[in-house]
């Protein structure tokens, strides 16, 4: 245990990158997820078709493949670059891969939320003269979001843990599990306490997330 604690700086640094990956990807996937949901609810068949194919396609692809596609495919093979330094370049590619993947789950949750809104409210909004986008923005999405706060919390927890895939799937991005593996490789950390230590580290991130979202979902619930 002392050997683990003596490397606590590296552990904390690893987790700080996990948090950064998670937060940036969460934000991006949230925005993308709302966009996909809006497209899927739209009266334009082309937009609906595009969004549905995207969600069904990416949601059913293993995250490892999505991240390999970003790292080996777009970044290495096609030479697309997101930043000057290698570390930041892989960071942003990992964010893109994680967001592209997680957005599908955000969209699916939101769609479930939309289905709970009585059609009558949408008709009432239409009757007032609200346009389609106003209806989505003012009536549908706000209520859908409130109903799916709990499920979105689960998506966020999954995303937090999924960041660990980014370092093994071709993108040598810095995050907690990569730090752990490096510590093993360098032979400076005893295996069992280190595993337990990192597992607790993830619990420290995800448990409060779960509780917070549980509390929030009760707080913002729409009473019908």
């Amino acid at each position, binding site marked *: 245990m002392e050997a683990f604690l003596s490397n606590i700086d590296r552990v904390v640094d690893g987790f700080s990158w996990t948090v950064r990956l998670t937060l940036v990807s969460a934000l991006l996937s949230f925005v993308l997820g709302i966009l996909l949901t809006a497209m899927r609810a739209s009266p334009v068949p082309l937009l609906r078709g595009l969004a549905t194919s995207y969600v069904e396609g990416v949601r059913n692809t293993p995250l490892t493949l999505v991240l390999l596609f970003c790292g080996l495919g777009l970044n290495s093979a096609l030479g697309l670059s997101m930043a000057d330094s290698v570390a930041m370049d892989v960071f942003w590619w990992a964010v893109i891969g994680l967001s592209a993947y997680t957005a599908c789950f955000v969209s699916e949750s939101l769609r479930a939320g939309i289905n709970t809104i009585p059609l009558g409210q949408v008709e*009432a909004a239409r009757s007032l003269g*609200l346009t389609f986008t106003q209806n989505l923005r003012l009536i549908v999405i706000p209520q859908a979001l409130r109903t799916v706060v709990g499920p979105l919390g689960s998506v966020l927890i999954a995303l937090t843990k999924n960041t660990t895939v980014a370092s093994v799937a071709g993108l040598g991005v810095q995050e907690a599990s990569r730090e752990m593996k490096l510590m093993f490789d360098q032979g400076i950390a005893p295996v069992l306490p280190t595993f337990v230590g990192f597992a607790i580290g993830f619990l420290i991130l995800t448990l409060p997330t779960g509780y917070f979202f549980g509390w929030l979902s009760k707080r913002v619930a729409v*009473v019908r």
Partner: protein
Amino acid sequence: MTSTPLVVLENVNKHFGDLHVLRDINLTVNSGEVVVVIGPSGSGKSTLCRTINRLETIDSGTITLDGQPLPAEGRGLAKLRSDVGMVFQSFNLFAHKTVLQNVTLGPTKVLRQGKAEAEKRGMELLDRVQIGDQAHKYPAQLSGGQQQRVAIARALAMNPKVILFDEPTSALDPEMVQEVLDVMTDLAREGMTMVVVTHEMGFARRAANRVIFMADGQIVEENTPDEFFTNPRSERAQDFLSKILTH
């Protein structure tokens, strides 16, 4: 009272699959007029009401509002709908917004009124339907009758040319029906143009200028309330009235 035609339906037909729900409907609602539509369930009266702001599309025929044909979709349709108030059977208040926000949403977002102006007018309307003291509650905290009165205030806030009522009291507990009908009767007296689908014969007698009797997707009879209730001409209407007026 003026008698300029405000809502005009000509040869309107609509099908739900094989069911011919509206058959050659011709109807003119004049400005300031209160038209009550009655008839048995499934006669197409709600559908008729909903075609007027295009919540239901029609298969053939024309509908005009103030001389303008209904736009098929887009901003033109949204603009037209802002001139046509609608009050639903199930109230359909926005559950995540307070009573006052329900009333000010249309004016601020569609008519682009300032918030203060919309709230001032909103409070006036809520006071008028005697619910001003509940302005900051959420719909779920109100009784059905109160919710329906808010829905009426929400429609009035848009200064509509006509208000459509689609069975506004059918989902209410009996003791709450009167408070909603009272508000509607006042509106009728003040000269609001109204199309009311209802089973409330008392309201029809009291407030209507004209009663439309529908059966099987057709307008079977059209008359003043006095004439219709005391002397229905068609057999279908006689049969309908004998069933509802005896209990």
